[in-house]
């Protein structure tokens, strides 16, 4: 029900990302809703109407206040030592006690002043080298001067956020690896892409961003429905979803051999999709939670992301409830009709997706899932036109070795390449530039290639026969489709 205002202003109902230093968290912008982020709580009410990219300070009572321009920390005549030969760690250099600092905080004194007090009460500060002083101030600022920036979601931000907070949910797909996938897959406006992912919808979102609402995407999904928790964090406009189709993985075989029919679909009520999606989510959560180290942050982020979904679901339920009380009879009839309509719509969408796949002219295939890539590739490549790129992600190298070998045996692909990227971050400061102390140990592997016309000459005599066998059933199937 929230209005969407144009331009880069923070609006109620938006999907926004909170940023503190290098930590991100995706949140829906809602009024009177308490947000906990990096051990601080606050409300976003005040942020509404401000430009994206604005930095805020958290005041008493969880009020956000835009941070005024950077106040220069009075750089008095600097006094510094040259080395640390006389600095002794006796644990007494800081004259303020824990209680003193807590008292300062409780008084609501600005973080900046607390840092100043800490410096003044440090007996060794003046003896530290200029660089060590700098480092000391930076560290204290980080702790006491909490500045939260609200930024617009993008693939850059969301993929960085997911990799840091919930790598298990995206199969440890590092953001630079995702960047390679989008480029190797030539993802762009106007294409017809097939996406098979179990990365919470992050890869789908990245593909949607690059396609800008032009062209079409067919998302292949396992289980009861596609998971799109991360996709919803992007805050895409509605038209972006007009040409987003989905097709169940379990129907791929029947589609390929021509026995596909929507009649054979378990005619489940449309709510099932949602229910199953939620179950999937919670199972994944439990798995992530048991992974120990990531537990706290991941649980928190998962909660936030799921809340968005739950919220929406609840809104729908509430609306239905109210209506229900208003007019039971009418509601009952409408309910049935509504269910039928939804089921019909779902079937229509499935037929559309099947028709798109049957054309076998997709412009690319992107795979990033928890499943073994070989069977996915061998089947899904059938739907791709010749001279089009495909990319498969896998957290591990070994399955891609097998996939490589099997694709070679199958033929119809060239320029196969197995690769990995390493990402190294740098600290760049005058006279103190060096690679960062830690770097990510692994961001997964990619197998990429280009499709070509499959050679029908020699090996496919049996295949041809199979094709002839398929013909009749394929036609029958079309007739059935028309009926529904």
């Amino acid at each position, binding site marked *: 029900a929230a209005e969407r205002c144009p331009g880069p202003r923070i609006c109620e109902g938006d999907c926004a990302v909170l940023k503190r230093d290098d930590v991100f968290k995706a949140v829906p912008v809602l009024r009177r809703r308490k947000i906990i982020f990096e051990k601080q709580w606050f409300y976003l009410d005040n942020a509404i109407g401000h430009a994206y*990219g604005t930095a805020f300070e958290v005041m008493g009572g969880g009020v956000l206040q835009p941070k005024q321009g950077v106040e220069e920390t009075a750089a008095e005549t600097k006094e510094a030592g040259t080395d640390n030969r006389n600095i002794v760690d006796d644990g007494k250099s800081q004259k303020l006690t824990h209680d003193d600092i807590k008292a300062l905080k409780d008084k609501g004194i600005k973080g900046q002043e607390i840092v100043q007090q800490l410096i003044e009460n440090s007996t060794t500060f003046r003896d530290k080298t200029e660089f060590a002083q700098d480092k000391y101030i930076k560290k204290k600022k980080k702790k006491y001067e909490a500045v939260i920036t609200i930024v617009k979601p993008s693939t850059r931000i969301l993929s960085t956020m997911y990799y840091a907070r919930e790598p298990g949910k995206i199969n440890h797909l590092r953001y630079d690896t995702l960047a390679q996938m989008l480029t190797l897959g030539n993802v762009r406006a*106007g294409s017809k892409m097939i996406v098979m992912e179990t990365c919470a919808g992050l890869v789908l979102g990245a593909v949607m961003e690059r396609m800008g609402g032009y062209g079409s995407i067919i998302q292949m999904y396992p289980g009861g429905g596609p998971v799109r928790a991360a996709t919803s964090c992007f805050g895409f406009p509605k038209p972006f979803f007009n040409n987003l189709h989905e097709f169940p993985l379990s129907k791929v075989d029947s589609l390929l051999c021509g026995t596909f029919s929507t009649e054979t679909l378990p005619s489940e009520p449309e709510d099932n999709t949602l229910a199953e999606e939620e179950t999937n989510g919670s199972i994944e959560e439990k798995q992530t939670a048991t992974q120990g180290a990531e537990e706290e942050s991941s649980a928190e982020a998962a909660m936030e992301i799921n809340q968005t979904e739950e919220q929406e679901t609840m809104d729908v339920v509430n609306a239905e409830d109210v209506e229900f009380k208003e007019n039971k009879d009418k509601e009952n009839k409408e309910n049935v009709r509504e269910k039928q309509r939804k089921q019909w719509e779902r079937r229509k969408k499935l037929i559309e997706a099947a028709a798109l796949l049957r054309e076998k002219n997709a412009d690319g295939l992107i795979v990033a899932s928890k499943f073994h890539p070989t069977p996915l590739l061998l089947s899904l490549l059938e739907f791709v036109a010749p001279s089009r790129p495909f990319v498969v992600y896998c957290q591990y190298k070994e399955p891609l070795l097998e996939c490589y070998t099997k694709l070679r045996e199958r033929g119809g692909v060239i320029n196969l390449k197995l690769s990995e990227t390493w990402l190294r971050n740098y600290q760049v400061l005058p006279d103190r530039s060096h690679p960062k102390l830690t770097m990510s140990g692994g961001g997964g592997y990619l197998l990429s290639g280009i499709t*070509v016309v499959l050679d029908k000459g020699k090996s496919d005599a049996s295949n041809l026969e199979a094709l002839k066998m398929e013909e009749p059933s394929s036609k029958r199937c079309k007739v059935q489709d028309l009926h529904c």
Partner: protein
Amino acid sequence: MSFVEYGDTIKDGDTAIVFLGHESMFPVKVQHGTVTQTKYGVIRHSTDLIGKKYGSKVTCSKGGWVFILHPTPELWTMNLPHRTQILYSTDISVITMMLELKPGSIVCESGTGSGSLSHALIRTVAPTGHLYTVEFHQQRAEKAKEEFREHGVEHLVTVTNQDVCKNGFGVSDIADAVFLDIPSPWEAIGHAKSALKAEGGRICSFSPCIEQVQRTCLAMEEYGFTEINTLEILLRVYNVRTISLQIPDLGKAAEDNSGTGFDSSNPSNQGILGTNPQPGAVQFKSGVPLKEMVGHTGYLTFATKS
């Protein structure tokens, strides 16, 4: 064909990629009546290419065959005529994502160089975005213009022949992102800032040397850019090989057949090992890193104007 739209069949005037085999390919301008020589013999454009499907196998005069591929910015990067050092797809991928480029984005770039990055940028911002690219070398600027025309993307790009450090990008308050690949990027940071939209945007500078990065970071800070971040991306490519390792003869009793002795002590391994054509050896598949890899292209420094 166009670099921003797939076509099914090869047409007169297209730029196509002739794929000869393992990493060996070259671009060809398709023209009626023209022939192209390959090591497998002659390709006659009128009969062998025009009207054929992209991705087809084409038999050359000596009986050898090649594949004809639809051009993409990535294939172009691997095959373009070098007029300068170029950016490769690994860096380009990260630049594109970190600059948050998408259809509709307005991008400023300098220098144009050989147009490797330009093609990738145009692909990503099409059909509603635009690339303003600045190249101070007149001949290179003209050559780039010509290529953009041939590749059907001239409507998405403006090439300007001027010095970006002195004269800037020729546009102001318009760009969502700026990319710099010039020897002294710190001299262009001010121009980059004014090219970016008032409400903000992203910037990236590519430099091979750390000293250049340091000066650039200082300039970015001076001009009020935030989120300054320097990174480097390395590509590791693996060859898929079947490796066979000999089992050492440790003088085990003769009743134990060599090889099978090893296998049976590792029953869990048998699935992977498969058939062993050589007795006394174990086979496995491995991803073997190339003997040499690119160890450094350049540092990428990103920042935000907000």
